[in-house]
């Protein structure tokens, strides 16, 4: 262990080192971190820019590259900046951090580096994976992207698609935090599927808080968090731009749920077009600006419509009819079997939430009749309430 900080000398255990981790309970055996992984992580930490890491590793083994950078004779290190940074780097601390976070490193030479990413010359060259490393190969990956400031409709649709895709064995990918992407991942977490894949635009181990922290913990437990950046690299606009290429590169389909005309989600769409990944758009109310970006893609022929999870599966080549009804949920009862008041009310419910008062006004029924009809419809799976406002929910 003490040799980790010393460079150039013979490493006592070239295959790997095990570090005791003080923050873990006794008996916990962290995954072994190989020296090569540590070298790659050190290179990524020193270079910061993932494209530079790719140039550092091109044609070199990690060990050779690291030794060359440290000695100031790597040709990609034009001004010796990397050599100075490498000399200042506390490798032992970096190793401890990687082990503590449970981060594994894979790069183009390792067998678990996704093949399609490895083929893309403009793709990432290093990935840091926290959580289930095998998730990169657990099944087809679908990126669900969309607005962070989503509407109730968008969150609900994303959640529905996430759950249904997860149940069908699809890995749902996206970012952490709020909005559509988080909602889709929460849906995937609820399903019995392979778990979500979060692609983030900052180094792992960043201090998180609130919603983002809860989400991160849940994802690491069942799925994985992936990034191109070394632990400790802060999130910046340019790192968020890089995030799109790994997210799209890992995915077989990009699904857009709610993207406004200037939404950041459209960046992933541009990246998908560059990489030749099919794009699907879930439509929404045409009256809502939150959907204009997505609708425009469809109108321009750059994306196809997906109005239920089966459409996504069909694009993946997994057309299995409708086997992905989430377990434990009943299908809608036919409307014809409900009371006439319930049918009248159901005819007025759409995707936009409406108030009980409005329903009373347009149906001509009394308040008592309307509230009873709404409860009947809710029981039959036709109506959904949020904060006292009612609309048609997703059938799932």
């Amino acid at each position, binding site marked *: 262990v003490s040799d980790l900080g010393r460079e150039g000398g013979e490493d006592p255990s070239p295959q790997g080192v095990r570090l005791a981790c003080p923050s873990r309970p006794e008996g916990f055996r962290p995954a072994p971190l190989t020296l090569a992984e540590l070298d790659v992580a050190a290179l990524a930490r020193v270079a910061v820019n993932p494209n530079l890491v790719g140039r550092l590793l091109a044609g070199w083994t990690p060990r050779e590259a690291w030794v060359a950078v440290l000695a100031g004779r790597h040709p990609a290190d034009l001004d010796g900046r990397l050599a100075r940074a490498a000399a200042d780097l506390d490798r032992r601390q970096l190793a401890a951090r990687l082990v503590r976070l449970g981060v594994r490193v894979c790069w183009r030479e390792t067998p678990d580096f996704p093949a399609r990413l490895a083929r893309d010359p403009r793709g990432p060259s290093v990935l840091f994976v926290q959580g289930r490393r095998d998730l990169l190969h657990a099944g087809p990956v679908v990126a669900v992207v969309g607005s962070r400031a989503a509407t109730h409709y968008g969150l609900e649709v994303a959640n529905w698609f996430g759950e249904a895709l997860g149940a069908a064995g699809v890995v749902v990918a996206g970012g952490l935090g709020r909005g559509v992407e988080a909602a889709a991942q929460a849906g995937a977490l609820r399903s019995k599927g392979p778990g979500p894949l979060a692609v983030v635009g900052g180094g792992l181990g960043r201090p998180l808080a609130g919603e983002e922290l809860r989400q991160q913990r849940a994802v690491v437990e069942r799925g994985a968090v992936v990034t191109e950046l070394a632990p400790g690299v802060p999130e910046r606009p340019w790192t968020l731009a890089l995030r799109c290429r790994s997210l799209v590169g890992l995915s077989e389909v990009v699904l857009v749920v709610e993207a406004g005309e200037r939404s950041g989600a459209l960046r992933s769409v541009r990246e998908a077009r560059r990489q030749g990944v099919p794009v699907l758009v879930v439509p929404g109310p045409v009256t809502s600006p939150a959907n204009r970006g997505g609708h425009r893609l469809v109108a321009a022929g750059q994306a196809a419509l997906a109005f239920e999870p089966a459409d996504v599966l069909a694009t993946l080549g997994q057309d299995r009819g409708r086997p992905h009804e989430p377990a434990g949920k009943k299908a809608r009862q036919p409307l014809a079997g409900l009371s006439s008041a319930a049918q009248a009310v159901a005819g007025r419910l759409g995707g936009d939430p409406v*108030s009980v008062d409005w329903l009373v006004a347009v149906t001509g029924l009394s308040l008592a009749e309307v*509230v009873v009809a709404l409860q009947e419809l809710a029981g039959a799976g036709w109506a959904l309430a949020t904060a006292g406002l009612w609309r048609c929910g997703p059938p799932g």
Partner: protein
Amino acid sequence: VLAQVWAATRRGVDGQPVEVEVHVSNGFPGFSIVGLPDAAVRESRDRVRSALLSCGRRWPQRRVTVNLAPSGLKKAGPGLDLAIAVGVLGAQGELPESATEGLAFVGELGLDGSLRPVPGLLALLWCLATRAPRGVVVPMSCAEEARLVLGPLARPVGCLRELLAVLTGQGSWPQVPSPEASLASPAPAPLSQPDLAEVRGQHLGRRALEVAAAGRHHLLLVGPPGSGKTMLATRLPGLLPDLTREEALEVARVWSTAGVRWPGGGLPQRPPFRAPHHGITAVGLVGGGTDLAPGELSLAHRGVLFLDELGELAARTLQALREPLEEGVIRLARAGAREVLPAKILLVAAMNPCPCGEGLPGGWCRCRPPERARYLQRISGPLLDRFDLVVTVPRVQAEDLLGQGPGESTAVVARRVAGARAAAERRRAAAERRDPKGRSSAGRVEEDPQAAWSPEARQLVAQQVAQGKLSARGVAKVATVARTVADLGGRETVGQVDVAEALALRAGVEALIPDRRW
């Protein structure tokens, strides 16, 4: 040389009898008051001196000591002026002891000897009623108020000169216009209360008012600005039944203590309605200060307290609401004093769903989630639990209003409310007969909320619980509200309709969950 006269001072909403002892002795001329007087009482020396001189009486050129017993109690306010003046005369031997025997004196003196009204007069008279078998002398302007408590033993006089004439046997008690005459003269204009018929649409909001009035359920209205929350809330007092005489006296007493005049004068007949600005402090709400004065919660006793912009109230102020809403009283405890103030109120609160106001589903909220979360977190869980009814009030579209006629008027709904209250009272009385001791330690007979429920109603609640939409506490709330809804409809059994309405009247709780977690 020594005279003893009865007067009273105020503590919270109660009066405390004070014995004013005046001693005039030889010595260097001077005047001192002992017995923890406050600034106003200490200054009464100058008022009393000028008033006596104005009435043509002598001011003793000797040593005057005034003791206010019990000496350990702080005395506040100028209401002791009259008693001190009478005491000074008595101690000089200008009034026989028999003249003041059995009388008590309450009033502030003007420099010309005129008598001015005293805040909290009702409470003072209440505590003096037993000490003063011959009556209590009060300022003429408070005659009507005094008569509520003392009847013929209220002795209103216009000025000190008049009083001295009576006490020395040179005159008789002045005639006061009879209560009927006084009531007839200012023509008790019924307070113009807004009518419920003016509210178009808002079926759920109107229903919420009705249920709140019938079952005394606290109501929270959540909606964007301009959706009619305030309009609805101001129409709630009109639905409440008139105050009984006992209730009216309680209300009058609190108001008089706070020094707030009842609009229109006389004994209040309608429940009070208080709507303080949201900048109100915790003390302004629950009461306090050195003299433990009642706050807005107590002023709204037996009536409606309307807190608009609940989300903008200071966090401390909001949390101060918790015990009073549960217990109906405020137990103030300060270093020097303890007091129980009444606060049996019906609370109506209104707030926006987020700082920008547009945060209802389907709205265009411009708040960042942390802002919204901070705003909503101020309405803490325990506070939210005090509201049985949480109703979202979405904005009404103008075209929806055009086709609609006026709704039911206040009078119609108030009749239903009275009927429902009577039904609840009958049920409570019946339960008390069955089980006179009561099951709860508070002595209140609690009904089993689901005792008289139809199978459909039970099934609907069970379904909500199974879907995770209703917690155990939520079930209890829905049960009590459903009972009230059934009472309004004149139904003995709580049916599916009642539960569905109760659920709709509580659905707004969801709008206040800070971050809908996915």
